[in-house]
């Protein structure tokens, strides 16, 4: 008897242990995440009132008051939402709009969206990065605007004002999924005050990689406490690594990750090796940049702070860095009060003149974000009314007053910011990322390749081999190009 009990007990123990072991491992089932369902606003009087109780819709973005994308919060909460609510109330169809600020990284926001949408939840209007579109559509997570709201979305007056190439930022296979906010370009931002101290020209424009290295070396010599240059690398910075760092370097070396004529992924090329060697020179051989910032969590924020504090002299970033991160009008934590005096910018030169992508002397790359509608919304008409109102000329003109930028609408000019006006002129040089569902995974492989080089784990050759293997596994042998001479 005792023996039996003992045995049974030990089997139960095994079971409990097994279960204890399974429990944390069993999480890959999608769980509804923190997405409070839209709650009906309490009506002040229980008695039937002449106006119906307002419908509540929510909008979310990677934006925090006084933090990241602070201008967006300011524009939405001080201008768009109050004006919209007033208009709707006057029409007798009151709507309340609530902004849900998201303070994490872009990658965390993307994961949150994917899980929310899969669980049939999420906010009604969502800020969305264009390059996610193909992947989310293919996964059945988002739907075309006309399917969510109805054919009237195509009647919106704004479409006529948004060039097709810009609309394409949030399109997939000919369908519109959202309204783009605008497009952007990449340049090298530099601190004029540090350049002056190091004996470099305040109006600086390199025309080759060697010009960049020469300037960085001079800063290192003259100002030993200053990091001469950061070029984004590593997986922690996510898409910022490829968009602000790797692609610009690769394009300046004369190639890209995708061949547009053959629709194939370039997994090995002399330019890719040159690009990885560029990283090695910056971070390992000459120590002109601090690899640590690229490897640590929160490195991008550290690079912003370093630039703000005059600890980093050159930073490769998009125009977002100028108009949002550094912008004193947005009250962002990285704002530089005298930005216009101390911050300069230079076009990204080809490795040597004429040796850049498509034989260009200078290169850049564009992406774009916007806002989409959640297919799970309970109030599609109201959500569309709000989305299209946000992108009315009137509202965007208000936004230009806080954060002038390249807006999607051609009837909304860049006003009052000479730098942004100049940056618009780079658009003819630009290229874009392939709109394919697998793209984000290829980008992750490229981020990893830069991380392996700047951490010293692999040589550029080894990192390119590893990248080639990973991308081949992702896209299949028939979809790759190997441009290395044998």
């Amino acid at each position, binding site marked *: *008897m*005792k023996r039996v009990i*003992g045995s049974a007990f*030990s089997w139960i*123990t*095994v079971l409990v*242990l*097994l*279960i*204890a*072991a*399974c*429990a*944390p*491992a*069993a*999480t*890959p*089932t*999608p769980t509804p995440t923190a997405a409070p369902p839209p709650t009906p606003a309490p009506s002040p009087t229980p008695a039937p009132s002449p106006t119906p109780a307002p419908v509540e819709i929510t909008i979310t973005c990677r934006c925090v008051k006084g933090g990241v994308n602070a201008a967006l919060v300011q524009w939405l909460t001080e201008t768009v939402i109050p004006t919209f609510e007033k208009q709707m109330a006057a029409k007798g169809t009151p709507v309340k709009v609530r902004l849900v600020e998201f303070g994490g990284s872009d*990658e965390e926001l993307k*994961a949150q969206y*994917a*899980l929310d949408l*899969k669980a049939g939840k999420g906010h009604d209007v969502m800020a969305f990065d264009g390059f996610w579109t193909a*992947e*989310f559509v*293919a*996964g*059945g*997570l988002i739907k075309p605007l006309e399917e969510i709201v109805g054919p009237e979305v195509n009647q919106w007056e704004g479409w006529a004002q948004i060039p097709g190439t810009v609309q394409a930022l949030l399109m997939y296979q000919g369908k519109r999924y959202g309204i783009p906010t605008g497009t952007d370009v990449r340049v090298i931002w530099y601190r004029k005050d540090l350049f002056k101290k190091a004996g470099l020209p305040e109006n600086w424009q390199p025309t080759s990689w060697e010009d960049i290295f020469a300037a960085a070396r001079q800063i290192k010599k003259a100002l030993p406490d200053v990091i001469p240059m950061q070029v984004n690398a*590593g*997986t*922690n910075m996510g898409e910022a690594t490829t968009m602000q760092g790797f692609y610009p370097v690769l394009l300046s070396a004369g190639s890209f990750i995708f061949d547009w004529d053959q629709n194939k992924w370039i997994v090995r090329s002399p330019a890719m090796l040159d690009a990885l060697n560029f990283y090695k020179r910056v971070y390992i051989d000459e120590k002109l940049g601090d690899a*640590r910032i690229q*490897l*640590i*969590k929160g490195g991008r924020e550290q690079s912003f702070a370093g630039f703000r504090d005059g600890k980093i002299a050159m930073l490769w970033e998009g125009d977002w860095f100028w108009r949002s991160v550094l912008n004193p009008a947005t009250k962002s934590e990285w704002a530089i009060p005298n930005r216009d005096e101390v911050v300069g910018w230079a076009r990204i030169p080809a490795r040597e003149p004429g040796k850049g992508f498509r034989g260009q002397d200078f290169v850049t790359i564009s992406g774009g974000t916007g806002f989409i509608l959640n297919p799970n919304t309970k109030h599609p008409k109201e959500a569309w009314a709000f989305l299209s109102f946000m992108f009315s000329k009137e509202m965007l003109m208000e936004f230009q007053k806080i954060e002038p930028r390249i807006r999607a609408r051609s009837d909304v000019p860049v006003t009052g910011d000479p730098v942004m006006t100049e940056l618009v002129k780079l658009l003819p040089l630009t290229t874009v990322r392939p709109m394919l*569902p*697998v793209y*984000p*995974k290829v980008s*992750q492989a490229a981020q*990893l390749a830069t*991380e*392996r080089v700047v*951490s010293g*784990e692999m040589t550029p050759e080894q990192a390119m081999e*590893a990248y080639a*293997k990973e991308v081949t596994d992702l896209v299949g042998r028939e979809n790759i190009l190997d441009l290395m001479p044998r």
Partner: protein
Amino acid sequence: MVQRRPILSPAVGMLFLLPALGFVLVFLVFPSLWVLQISLTNQTLTGEAALRPQFVGLANFQALFDFENWMIRGYFGNALRNAVFFVIGSALIGQAGLGLAIAWAFHRRRGLLREALYTLVILAWIIPDVVVAFMWVAYLDRDQGTLNAILSTLRLGRVDWLIDHPLLSIIIFNTWRGTAFSMLLFSSALATLPPSYLEAAAVAGASAWQAFRDIILPSIRSHIITDLVLITLWTFNTFTPYLITGGGPTFRSEVVSIYTFRIAFQHFEFGRGAAVAVVMMVINLILALIYLSTLRREAVAR
């Protein structure tokens, strides 16, 4: 042996067990089988395989045990190796070793020092994970970290803990974090030891080490085994190191739990993530069986 009549008939006993079994089925057995099923598909959260996942057989497991790239950082072998070091370093040597040392050092002692030390160790155990992680990031930071401030005051130089020694950092962290459990378990085990054993040993002229080896260790052996089972499982599955190093730099502190998270929730590859989870379950099961058979042999030997 006196024959005792059970209070409940077996059938009624089963009836009482049913609700609990129902819960176990719905919340543990079913999800586990579901994970097993997902692990045989190429299911993803985004992209084409999200809508139309395909049965891929054991391909996910083959990818995990791809021995050509097995130990390259970022692959499964690397995560498994890190997890083994992490378990040996922080659970077996760190938590169990330190816990036993503290319990033995303060055995049958009272006083302010003991109370203060016990309070601190238990405090480290009961603070929530996220708070603790923030404290440790602040403690280990290269530039503003408390530890480096202390070291440089002592003129020992600064160390970039999270970048140059990421695995060591999470091992030290997890030791600090979890020693309380082992310490409390061993303290209570030692408290059950009749004082006469040690007194007799002292009279016989045994040294402290001899007394520890020949009296203490054999007496609390089953407690040690229980402790090792539990903390090995917990440590193998813990996710808190992610909050400190994120598994980096270049996957040098990526243990298996972080690897699972990365594959399933950062790359959205549920199929492969589920395969790792299944492998984790099997490893846990093997660990549990090894320890339990040892425990059984102990009981029989006694």
